[in-house]
């Protein structure tokens, strides 16, 4: 609080406070704006002098969203795909990280290279051949196919992220468990996995957010309207009419709400985990 008592320091703090205010405005302003917009009646939305708060709060946009669009269906589809992606990513990347870094399968050192390589390939390039591959597997136009594709893009990064966490657990713990007669599988589930929880949480949030926001693959590999995920459904809601801003703003709010709420609940762990994994 000395900043308040010494005038010199207070003056020097001004630029910093201005930058803080600007950053807050830039980051949170758009989210605030879409939120209050969706509570405005039509007449206020298309007013040429927008107000910072609705003059009259209304729920009519949300009522229309639920009554006239397939929003509830898109929502449940998105949950199916996001939870599916998260679970499969967890299983695949924990298994891979454990196998590579604990059971010393050759190639552990190459993970970063493989991660890098998978980012070098434009996703656009894969759309066409992947479509053919999924059709051959009978997975086109299905949530399972979409989960498979999502996992291919989340798992390498997650395996790499988990490495830092696994390497931080002393190998002596494994050795002690082995002396006590625990097999490698039991060591993995009962000893290493519980110590890995921060990493697991980070990877779970990452893959959930990835598949919740994924648009390109979802729009190409799902043909039935009934199977569309939220981003694709949201895009369709805009395209359908001359832009109905009431519907669009409320649909947008309800598309970002699930991940934002999830993040506000567990974001602290995610940030910690990302830092721990990435700076190791």
């Amino acid at each position: 609080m000395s900043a308040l008592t010494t005038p010199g320091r207070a003056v020097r703090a001004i630029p910093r406070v201005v930058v803080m205010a600007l950053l807050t405005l830039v980051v949170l302003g758009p989210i605030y704006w879409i939120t209050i917009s969706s509570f405005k009646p039509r007449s206020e939305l298309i007013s040429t002098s927008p107000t910072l708060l609705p003059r009259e709060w209304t729920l009519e946009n949300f009522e229309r969203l639920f009554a006239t669009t397939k929003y509830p269906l898109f929502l449940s589809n998105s949950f199916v795909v996001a939870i599916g992606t998260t679970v499969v990513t967890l299983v695949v990347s924990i298994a891979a990280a454990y196998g590579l870094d604990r059971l010393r399968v050759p190639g552990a050192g190459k993970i970063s290279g493989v991660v890098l390589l998978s980012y070098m390939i434009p996703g656009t390039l894969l759309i066409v051949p992947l479509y053919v591959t999924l059709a051959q597997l009978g997975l086109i136009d299905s949530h399972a196919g979409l989960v498979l594709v999502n996992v291919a893009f989340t798992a390498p990064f997650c395996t790499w992220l988990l490495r830092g966490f696994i390497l931080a657990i002393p190998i002596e713990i494994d050795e002690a468990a082995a002396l006590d007669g625990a097999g490698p599988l039991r060591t993995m589930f009962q000893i290493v996995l519980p110590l890995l929880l921060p990493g697991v949480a980070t990877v779970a949030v990452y893959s959930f957010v990835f598949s919740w926001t994924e648009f390109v693959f979802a729009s190409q590999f799902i043909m039935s309207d009934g199977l569309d995920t939220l981003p694709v459904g949201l895009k369709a809601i805009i395209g359908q009419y001359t832009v109905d801003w009431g519907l669009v703003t409320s649909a947008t709010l309800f598309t970002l709400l699930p991940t934002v709420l999830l993040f506000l609940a567990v974001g602290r762990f995610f940030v910690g985990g990302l830092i721990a994994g990435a700076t190791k």
Partner: protein
Amino acid sequence: MALGYALVAPIVVIMLVVIAYPLLNAVWTSLRDQRLIGSDSDFVAFETYAKVVGDPSFWAALRRSGLWLIGNMAVQTVLAFGAALLMQRRGWWARSARVWVMLPWVVPTVAVTIIWQWMLNSSYGVVYKAFEAVGIDLGSPFGNPVWALPVIILVNSWHWFPLTAVVVYGALATVPGEVIEAATIDGANAWQTFWAVTFPLLQPVLFAVALVGSLWSFNILDTIFLITEGGPADATTTLPVYVYNTAFSAFRASEAAAASVLTVIVLGIAALLFVRFARPKEL
């Protein structure tokens, strides 16, 4: 050892099926003359590549991708560093910022593009009106060939800078306080301390972030496609958009594949050069 292989097998199989096999398929397609996706075609060796290399719009797209990459890295680096340095401080603002600064990243891309189109709308948009109030007419930025790309770069940076900010913040926390203190005692000001002490210590993390972030940025399709689909007049057609439109609007599958293979080669060379010349000494 057998168990180890069994544990690593799933990720290997998935990556072979979803990435490696389709990739080989794309290379194969690029050596043929396929037009409509999946239609009959003949083997033409490198003829399609010659066509792509001879197409001025391919080079224009590559140039725009270069601008896209530089613009995104510049804006995101400034935002991320600014945010990270402030998040490091004490107090309620910094403590809460460590969580909310990530929010733009968790907002789905489609929602990001709608939010900004809504705020920049020239009839009802709040940002448009705010600029109008101080005498600046933004016009319709996404419909303007000069401004469309820079404005989409800003929108995309808003969406992606949080990831970098958090990693930089984490890296800053690993810089020992005593080293900074020592520099301060030796009479270095904040700016000198940052460049002489903090920056070199951050180099390994910055190296990784720059490499992964660049590749990530370069290949972005959705932000651009959802706002302008590459227009107006190709002003926002970066390479991924070029590839997408070539395959799905122009129905020239082989040319799209050849352009993508060339993209991977360009990125590969750029990444190798970057690793060769920018890798911090001790790594």
